[in-house]
């Protein structure tokens, strides 16, 4: 296992052309993930989590303009012709998307869908690919894989479909697995099984994982590092332990407070007042300022706070890294 990042993005921005003008979905983010490691991307809906990984791997919509640098296994992807990016992506990155009910093609057998990446990138023959598909379905815990390989997606339950999607993502033994809210559409028991499955596969295969989620419980359970996103920017990032025990941005504090009590006490859910700004009209200053419980000097409104270190590898984007308790700074 090398120290080199499997995937690293630097100053990534994504601007999407919409009818109402350019929308800044991602406004300059940096993160990286090493082999065997799990990076969690968390943040509210619309904060740019999905768009940042899609843009990094060349899957952004055609209307999007992507800038910044992306290194996959040391190869600079930005500026690479689309064809090469396609090959790199298929060969080295596996994706698991949110909704297994819609992310599988209804008219192709699951076997076909699991094998096609192997045929394309590893040059497997139809027959070898099929054997491999059975193997993969077995690996992700699908019972009687030799028969199920010829079944169609609608013949599987949601949890089983997500296992198929995971098998598909692992088809080329990728160096990186990107899981975009892979458990959101599943029931609680199945969620736990899928999380366990991915964690187990990661241990066995040494894959790097980028895990996008709203579930901070999952982050605490499986991630090594975490990046908290808000309105297209990272507000806080660092090792999970450091960020969870010492949240240094008011937004992180609020997110952690908003987490439902895992012990199931009848506690009311703490929510953050207000909503994030529109990506069509990002403020010049801190995007969280209007909702910030600290709401310090007018500085926050007009000036973008820099990402500053509060500890080793632990960075936070605020002028007031120590005022996380709601006290108004002076």
């Amino acid at each position, binding site marked *: 296992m090398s120290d080199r990042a499997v995937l690293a993005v630097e100053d990534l921005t994504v601007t999407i052309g919409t009818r109402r003008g350019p929308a800044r979905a991602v406004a300059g983010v940096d993160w990286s993930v090493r082999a065997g490691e799990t990076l969690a991307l968390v943040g509210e809906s619309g904060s740019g989590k999905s768009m940042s990984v899609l843009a990094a791997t060349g899957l952004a919509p055609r209307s999007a303009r992507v800038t910044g640098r992306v290194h996959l296994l040391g190869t600079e992807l930005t500026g690479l012709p689309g064809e090469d990016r396609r090959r790199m992506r298929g060969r080295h990155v596996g*994706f698991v*998307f949110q909704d297994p009910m819609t*992310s599988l093609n*209804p008219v192709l057998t699951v076997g076909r869908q699991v094998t096609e990446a192997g045929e394309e990138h590893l040059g497997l023959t139809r027959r070898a690919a099929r054997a491999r598909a059975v193997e993969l379905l077995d690996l992700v815990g699908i019972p009687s894989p030799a028969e199920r390989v010829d079944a169609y997606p609608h013949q599987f339950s949601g949890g089983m479909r997500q296992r198929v999607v995971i098998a598909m993502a692992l088809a080329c033994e990728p160096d990186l697995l990107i899981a975009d809210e892979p458990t959101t559409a599943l029931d609680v028991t199945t969620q736990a099984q899928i999380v366990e499955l991915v964690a187990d596969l990661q241990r066995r295969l040494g894959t790097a994982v980028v895990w996008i989620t709203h579930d901070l419980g999952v982050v605490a359970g499986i991630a090594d590092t975490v990046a908290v996103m808000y309105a297209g920017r990272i507000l806080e990032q660092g090792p999970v332990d450091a960020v969870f025990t010492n949240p240094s941005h008011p937004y992180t504090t609020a997110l952690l407070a908003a987490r439902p009590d895992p012990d199931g006490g009848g506690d009311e859910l703490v929510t953050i007042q207000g909503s994030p700004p529109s990506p069509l009209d990002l403020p010049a200053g801190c995007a969280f300022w209007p909702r910030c419980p600290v709401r310090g000097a007018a500085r926050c409104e007009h000036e973008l706070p820099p990402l500053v270190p509060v500890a080793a590898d632990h960075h936070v984007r605020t002028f007031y890294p120590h005022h996380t308790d709601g006290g108004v700074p002076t």
Partner: protein
Amino acid sequence: MARFVLRRLLQSCVVLLGVTLVVFLLLQLVPGDPVRVALGTRFDPQTYEALRARAGLDQPLVAQYFDYLGRALTGDLGVSFRSGRPVTSIVLERLPATLSLAVTAVVFATLIAFPLGILSAIRSGSFVDHAARVFSQFGVSVPDFWMGIMGILLFAGVLGWLPPSGYVALTEDPAGWASHVALPAATVGLVTASILTRFIRSSMLEVLSEDYVRTAEAKGLRTRVVVLRHVLRNALIPVVTVVAVQLASLLGGVIVIEVLFAWPGIGRLTYDSVQARDYPVLQGAILLVAALFLLVNLLVDILYARLDPRITVR
């Protein structure tokens, strides 16, 4: 599958039975006495009564219907009032002309519409897309007879490449048939193609935004594979119905075009027998068209089940 086909065939027969009843009753409601028309100026009461009796028109309606149905089951659809020839053979004689025109037109239309529709969807907003949209707009808004006339003027008149009208049987002279079918088929086909292009485009666009297409792209498949294997297969499902409806409606005969190009098809036959109040022939023609329609429907259902595994055939 065999049971499915058998059941659908039975259903079709029931529908066809309904069609005979409706056609039979409708024609009773049409004003005008066919025998009187057939006799024209040679009218005299004796011949009139004799002809009516021969055609069974003096019997009560119910008896007339069952009599008709019974004979229809044995393939006897009566005789033409006008020519006295058996309706079955009159109608079947027209089938090859209509069939070959309809099939050629649909093949022509799909050859244009598929590439155009697919390209305009995957390159939406591009030049091809705009061109395709202008083409479809043109095709659906310009009347087919006008296009036919322009085609005749250009290809038969100015260029002299094709005969202006007429029909040669495919079995007798394939080259002659081809040169005669080209203009009417292209005329009808252009209209069909423009309807199809639109439909394929929107169906493709809808599928292109599906999650599983992103999944396919995420796998790093070639664009061609994504489009053909993942998008088209799904986009095809609703398109099949439209192609079938188009084909079925062409099988009913394209009256204006058949008249314009002197094409002896079923449309032309329908037109002529309405003019002549030749009810037996009209009934026969409608019955044949209905049967063809049901057949196309059955084929579509089978194709559907093949394309979409979620449809279970029982």
